[in-house]
């Protein structure tokens, strides 16, 4: 089959609702969205804490989070593998080669991104409004909802950046998920496998969906920043 024929077959696969393709896409979204949700719940409060409060170890945590933003996914995969494998500390839970292990690996990858980027945005905003809020006798804890609200557009961008990293990642989920058919196969691992098998239709179909998802995330980020600046100029 020539490349154009493969591409046509790939598009046919996408529009023929059902089958392995949508199962793989569904699992990818389920794993990445769960990881993003948990990373956001963990990361935003920590980012806010680093933004508004100085304490012993503040610099160490900040530097660690900044460094961890560029963690190699395969290293994270190896770390989580050791953690959840039979002989590891979480071995009793039998998580290896399950979607849960893949979610854990993605949380380890994304949380530093959410913490480090949200800290930057929140700290800049806190420098702008913090003293004024304190002059209204509003304590730091009381000020947090205002701080989050004032930076909502930037924080949404941070979360979308985390999702972009999660959905496109392959190294960690391959190691801890094992790319098992109908169980832990996600878009990136399936693309790698199908390409190596010469099954270009499915690989290309998944590639197109991944690209479209990437495009949608970037479009959402762009629209948000446009909306935010339009809102400021209203």
């Amino acid at each position, binding site marked *: 089959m020539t490349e154009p024929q493969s591409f046509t077959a790939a598009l046919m696969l996408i529009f023929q609702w059902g089958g392995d393709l949508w199962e793989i896409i569904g699992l990818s979204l389920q794993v990445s969205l769960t990881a993003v949700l948990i990373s956001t719940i963990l990361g935003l409060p920590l980012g806010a804490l680093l933004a508004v409060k100085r304490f012993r170890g503040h610099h160490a945590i900040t530097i660690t989070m900044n460094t961890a933003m560029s963690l190699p996914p395969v290293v994270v995969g190896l770390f989580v593998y050791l953690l959840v494998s039979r002989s590891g500390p979480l071995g009793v839970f039998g998580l290896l080669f399950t979607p849960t292990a893949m979610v854990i690996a993605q949380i380890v990858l994304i949380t530093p991104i959410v913490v480090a980027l949200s800290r930057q945005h929140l700290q800049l905003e806190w420098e702008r409004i913090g*003293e*004024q809020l304190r002059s*209204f006798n509003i304590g730091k804890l009381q000020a947090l909802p205002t701080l989050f609200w*004032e930076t909502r557009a930037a924080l949404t961008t941070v979360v979308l950046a985390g999702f972009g990293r999660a959905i496109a990642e392959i190294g960690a989920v391959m190691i801890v998920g094992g790319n098992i058919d109908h169980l832990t196969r996600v878009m990136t691992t399936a693309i790698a496998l199908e390409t190596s098998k010469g099954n270009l239709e499915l690989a290309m179909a998944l590639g197109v969906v991944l690209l479209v998802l990437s495009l949608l995330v970037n479009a959402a980020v762009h629209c948000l920043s446009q909306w935010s600046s339009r*809102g*400021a*100029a*209203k």
Partner: protein
Amino acid sequence: MIATNQTSVAVSFTDVSLALNGTELLKGINLTLTKGAFTAVLGPNGAGKSLFLRLCHGLLAPTGGKLTWGDEQVSPVQTMVFQKPVMLRRTALENIMYVLRNYPKAERAQRAQQALQWAGLEHLSERMATVLSGGQQQRLAVARAWALKPEILFLDEPTASLDPAACDHVEAHVKAMHESGVQILMSTHNLAQARRLADEVIYIQDGQVMAHQPVNEFFTQPGCEEAYEFIKREVAIV
């Protein structure tokens, strides 16, 4: 020097000092601010005027000495307007409503509208506060302070970056607040403004309060050589 009356004291400093990162920025401050007065804080750049205001307002804690807010059990309602107005990314009306969060909802909106009318900004109530001009933002900041019904208002060079028309607006509203009974403590570089508005002057240089006098006395017989030189230099520049 101003004679202090302990029954009318609003803010009292006893040997107060402030050090940041090992550097003593304010030192040995002993004074009492007369309750109800309009006090201008003068001094050259870097003298410590803004730090002094932040200490008074409680945004900074003294590293030495004791600072007390009058003889009352409850600290007075106070707020501060900064040189660069700080606006939340919401409408002008919402910016005022935000500081009235402890009021009942209906009263909050009514009071915020009154504040906008008081400042002559009611036509801008639905505009985003962050896109108003510098002068409008500063008037909004003063209106927001007015809405809080403060007993003491701190102003840190509120007209420093405004054009003369905006400066007049802000001055008029600050003066109106003072006339309605609000005690005011304002740092400024503008000697004419201090003379126009203030009842008394605190002169700060190198982190020390060098003079604390009624305004007329300060300009005719400054309490220290440094204040005399400062006035002479500023007048020569004008």
